[in-house]
């Protein structure tokens, strides 16, 4: 029960402070889920981001559903997993729902509001820094669990460089993820067969 409550509060926080959408929310999610509560490892977090890239929908929702399920499962049955995923997904949407309805009611007042504009301007560089922090933490984690590092050998860095160039050249991210998955199978699975 306490775990499910913590889950609810964590995702409520993520929803409430998730300015800048998608990638910016990664740092918040990572901070709550990996750093604060250790509900998943750094590698699992990277995996859920990868899954989010190749499945439809916002990353925040995808991660809420997945993390909710795994955390719920820690409290008991499959049903607890389902309950956990529902709780986390509701929690991450609740601030959006409330705030956006408030905005819709007072639409004209908020538009061009100096307070909102000032806050947005102040948060813009911080949001970029948060995205960078999420990436840094994925590359250089604070703790090392065996088999749970994201960068394991020089192939990792070659793939990293290739995808970085690809995303810079505006190659479709889904294609990049699928290609790197195939490369991963080629590099790590087939040599063990020979």
């Amino acid at each position: 029960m306490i775990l499910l409550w913590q889950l609810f509060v964590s995702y409520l926080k993520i929803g409430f402070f998730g300015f800048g959408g998608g990638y910016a929310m990664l740092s918040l999610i990572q901070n709550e889920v990996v750093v604060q509560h250790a509900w998943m490892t750094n590698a699992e977090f990277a995996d859920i981001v990868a899954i989010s890239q190749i499945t439809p929908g916002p990353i925040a929702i995808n991660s809420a559903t997945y993390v909710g399920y795994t955390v719920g499962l820690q409290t008991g049955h499959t049903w607890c997993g389902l309950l956990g995923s529902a709780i986390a997904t509701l929690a991450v949407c609740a601030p959006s729902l409330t705030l956006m309805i408030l905005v819709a009611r007072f639409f004209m007042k908020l538009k061009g509001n100096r307070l909102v504009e000032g806050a947005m301007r102040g948060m813009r560089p911080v949001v970029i820094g948060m995205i960078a922090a999420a990436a840094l933490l994925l590359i250089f984690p604070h703790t090392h669990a065996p088999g749970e590092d994201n960068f394991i050998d020089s192939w990792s860095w070659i793939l990293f460089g290739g995808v970085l160039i690809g995303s810079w050249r505006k190659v479709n991210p889904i294609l990049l993820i699928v290609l790197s998955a195939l490369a991963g199978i080629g590099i790590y699975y087939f040599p063990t067969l020979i």
Partner: protein
Amino acid sequence: MNETRHPQLQLFWSFFRIGLFTFGGGYAMIPLIQREVIDRTGWIRREEFLDLLTLAQSVPGPIAVNTSVFVGYKLHGFRGAVAALCGTVLPSFAIILLIALFFAGFRQNPVVDAAFKGMRPAVVALIIGPVISLARGMHWSMFVIIIATALAIWGLGWSPIYILAAAAIAGITWELSIAPKAEKRKKGPNA
């Protein structure tokens, strides 16, 4: 606008389609939302849509979720907002739940494990991409803030929430106290 018997259901289906067919989230959803709420249904006027996007970005939460809540509320009040929200969320919720249900066993599979070993560094590269493109063209003082934020969160383990709150307060203070004076001195946009 012709009223159907179940306007909420229609909203739900529209946003269900949007949720189902947008990969990569966030900005990738915008063209699809545009097609659905402007071109196909005429729920929102084109000029309104740009304002809506700005608002959706100034409110926390995923842009797709914010947009759907706004459109739903504008058309059919609170029920409309909930219907549109459910439509957006349900496809990703169902798909991820299916993956989660079977993924625990999946991950032990050597082929899947190898695939994920390849995807992990790729994910990091995809996250770094927008950092570079967003930061380009900014004033050098902004780079200091970007780097300081990244180091504080990653190195010192500060919570991003406090940094965000501090930045919002600093931005408001600047906007209210310093910006008017600076504008007087030189006309033009600030960095």
